[in-house]
Structures are given as structure tokens and as C-alpha cells.
């Protein structure tokens, strides 16, 4: 386990690393290197990073349980907020560049196209999680209710993967990789809770 001094460095380091995908995207945009269909590239790129940050955020708990390194929890909020940050970019890229704020088109998309419906819903679910991510909000909500609310992230993860799965026309390979990772991460939680609740009973809370 790292020393406190290193801990102080990890957080800003992680922050900078999490911005590298954005920096790379800006670099490519400025250099006119987004390919033949730049808007599609922007949509796909930002979407990819939402999924990646969701997966990374969901890895914190299993990793903590497996390694016993509780200090990992310190980075979870920031990683989750980066998922939200890239989701905002993804949403903006769709609303602004792709649809050019054509509200009626956007609403029709959300209503008619299942992959957009599920993607949009997942984005909406991210908002309360981002808003209640501060320490003050945790206190105000109480740890228990806060935790219940933040379980939404499981549905957001599923929604994100389904969004990708329904977007592709026939080649399911890439979305299925995300689906497999997500299944592993959520499966671990199910396994772990079944495991630990049995432990709780066994350790004798019941007289």
C-alpha cells in the first residue's frame, strides 16, 4: 500500500491522466485529423470514453475487496465524475454537432430510436449521481440513502452497454467486450454480497 506522500500525488496524477483522452481529441480536431466523418468520430470517441470510465469506476469496489486496499475509494468519486464529464461531451456532440439543436429531431430520436432512448436515459440517471457526489450531499442524504441512490450506476452501466449494442448494425464484437467486462464487474458484486451476507449470519449477529 502506498505511503501517504504518494497518495497525495496519485490523485492529481489520475486527474491529469483522465484528461489525456480529451487532450488527444482536441489535438486531432485542431490538426484536422478526425477522418472523413469528424462528427461521427467525435460521437464515437466520447462515447467510448464514457463506457471506459464507467467500467473503471465500477472496478474500484471489486479491486478494493480483492486487494484489501481501502484507499482506492478515494479515487472513485473522481473517476465517476470523469464518466459524467465525458458523457456531457458525448451528449453535447450529439445535440450540437450531430443534430445542431434541432429540438424536434432530437425528441423524435429519443422517442423512436431505442438505442438513443436508452443512452439518453442513462445520461439523465448520471445527473443526480454527479449532483450528489459532494461530501456535503453524502452527509445530507445519509450514507445509506446515498448508497442506495448511487446503485443507479449499475443500471447506467447496463444502459451504456445496451446503447452501444443497439447502435451497431451487425458486428457485435466491440460492444460484447464491454458487456463481458460489465458482467464480470456486476457478477463480482452479486457473488460478494451473497458471500458476505452468509458470513454476517455465520459470524453471529443473531443471538
Amino acid at each position, binding site marked *: 500500500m502506498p505511503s501517504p506522500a504518494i497518495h497525495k500525488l496519485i490523485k492529481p496524477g489520475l486527474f491529469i491522466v483522465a484528461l489525456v483522452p480529451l487532450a488527444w481529441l482536441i489535438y486531432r480536431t485542431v490538426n484536422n485529423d478526425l477522418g472523413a466523418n469528424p462528427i461521427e468520430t467525435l460521437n464515437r470517441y466520447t462515447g467510448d470514453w464514457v463506457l471506459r470510465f464507467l467500467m473503471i469506476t465500477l472496478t474500484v469496489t471489486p479491486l478494493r475487496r480483492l486487494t484489501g486496499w481501502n484507499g482506492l475509494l478515494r479515487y472513485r468519486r473522481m473517476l465517476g465524475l470523469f464518466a459524467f464529464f465525458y458523457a456531457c461531451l458525448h451528449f453535447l456532440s450529439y445535440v450540437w454537432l450531430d443534430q445542431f439543436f434541432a429540438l424536434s429531431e432530437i425528441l*423524435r430520436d429519443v422517442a423512436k430510436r431505442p*438505442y438513443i432512448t436508452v443512452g439518453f436515459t442513462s445520461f439523465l440517471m448520471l445527473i443526480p449521481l454527479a449532483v450528489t457526489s459532494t461530501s456535503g450531499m453524502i452527509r445530507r442524504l445519509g450514507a445509506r440513502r446515498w448508497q442506495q441512490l448511487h446503485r443507479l450506476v449499475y443500471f447506467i452501466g447496463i444502459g451504456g452497454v445496451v446503447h452501444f449494442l443497439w447502435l451497431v448494425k451487425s458486428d457485435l464484437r466491440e460492444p460484447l467486450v464491454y458487456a463481458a467486462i460489465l458482467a464480470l464487474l456486476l457478477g463480482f458484486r452479486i457473488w460478494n454480497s451473497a458471500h458476505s451476507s452468509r458470513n454476517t449470519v455465520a459470524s453471529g449477529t443473531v443471538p
Partner: protein
Amino acid sequence: MLIARPSDIPASEITPREIYLQRRRFLKEAAAIAAAGATAALLPCVAEAGQKIPNVKKSPLSTTDKPTSHKDITSYNNFYEFGSDKSDPARHARNFRTFPWTVSLEGEIKKPAKYQIEDFLKHFPLEERVYRLRCVEAWSMVVPWIGFPLRDLIRRLEPTSRAKYVEFTTLHDPEQMPGQKPGLFGAGLDWPYVEGLRLDEAMNPLTILALGLYGEFMPNQNGAPIRLVVPWKYGFKSIKSIVKIRFVEQPPLTTWVKANPREYGFYSNVNPGVDHPRWSQASERRIGEDSLFSPKRKTLMFNGYAEQVASLYAGMDLKKHF
């Protein structure tokens, strides 16, 4: 006794696999050229992707829209046989073997035949046709194709009265086309790729078989050596790397219809009034022209070719026959 064990053979004497394969390829080609005879033998040498095509007429059927750049046309491709990412075909089709190439012409015709690419070049004068190409994914390009009207070929083959539809098939060769690997290893379609047209659609003067673009033989990633171009239909109807053209009585079951009949229809005419479940078809983005901040342009009925083709569908409910 002097029997060289593998370790005795110096590494310098082992022919690298690539060179070995090149030799075999050279021998095969040389044999094929010899077999094809002297005149035709010159053609395959020029029919390599990217070589200039001589004697091409301009066509009055060309659009005046500005052609999309050669770079965009050859780097942004939907050709799932080589992978489903737009950049996959340019990378994975680099070594695609398009010579020798035989197209089997069969079915309800009086003169079934097997054509080499040289035969097409011999029989049909080539023209440049600058056409709009509208993809079902709501983007579009303008491509200066080189080809000849499909009807010139059809007339030569003399269809029987039972020929109502034309079915086209792409090469099936998972060794060369990684997207054709089965199940989840490939791009997820039923191979080989099959497309179809009604005979009158195939006979329309706009329908061409293309052998090149931008004055050169077809780049591999664009469907070398020979592909269909039907400019008033969504791009996936314009089947690539054709090995079989079959005249049939019943509408062919095409690949995308088989994959998802709710989303893809046999006709697949460009129609801004009929949405694809995943994309609005009302508007499109023109590759290479629109800036990041310009709104999409309106999609035109039959991709702007209504004057030439609308009569083909007179009286049909195009919402039903999408």
C-alpha cells in the same frame, strides 16, 4: 551419410514466406496470362487497383456536385467483409487478390457465361459517371465512378421471359476477408453477401457496373475489381467484388434483409420520408464538405434521381415496400 538436419540449413537459405508466396503468385499469374492469350494478356497487368484507365468517356448522366476527395472515398468505407470499422477496409483489403477474377453469369439467360475482367473491358466501353452516394447511415459522398451500364451486359446475355430479378453475390473467401469469419469472429452477417434488383431496375440507364473511380481501376476497399452502383438506393445495395450475377424469377433474399427484415427492405430506395429505425433519413451529412458546425443537408427523394427512376415505382406504396 550427409543428411542435413534442420539446424544445418543456414537461415540465409530459407526463403521468407512472403517471397515464396510472391513467387507462387507470379507463376500463377504468368500461367493465367499465357492462357488468356496475347491481347487480353496485356489487360490484367493494367487492371491492378490504382492504375489509370484509358479511353473513358464523360457521361451526361453525371451530377455537377463536387466530387468527394479521393482520400475520403478510399479511407471511409463500409465493406464488412474486411471489417466493420470504416477504416478497416483500407487496411485489410490491401493485399486482396483481384486477379484472376471470374464473374459467373447464370440463371434465366440464353447465354450463360463466365467473364474475366478482361472480357468486360473488351465488350463494354467505359464511361465516367459522377454519382451521389447516400449511405443508410445518413452520410453521403459524390463519387466519379468508371463503369458501363449494366443493361449493356444484360442485353448481351439475353434474359429469358422468366428473368424477373437479378441476384448479385460477392466473393466468399474468409482467408482474405477477415470479416467473413463465422459468428463472433467476423462482422456478423451471413456470407457471402447477396444483393438484388428487379430486372427493370437493373435495366435502368443509371445502374452501372463499375470497374474504377477517379480515372483509375477500382481500389480494393471500394469493391475491386467489379461492383454495382445504383445511385438512387442506399449504398449497401451497391454490392462489391462481384463473382456471380444470376437471373431469377423470385426476389432474392438479400443479406441485410436476412439479417434484419424490420430495418432493411428489398428496395431500399433513398427516401427521406421513411426512417430507418436507427437513423432519421430526412437529412444527411456530405462527407468532406460540411464543417463541424454546419447542419445536415436535406436528403432528396431517390437521392435526387427521381426524374430518372420514379416511374419504376409508380403506384407502389413506398412506405410498405421500403
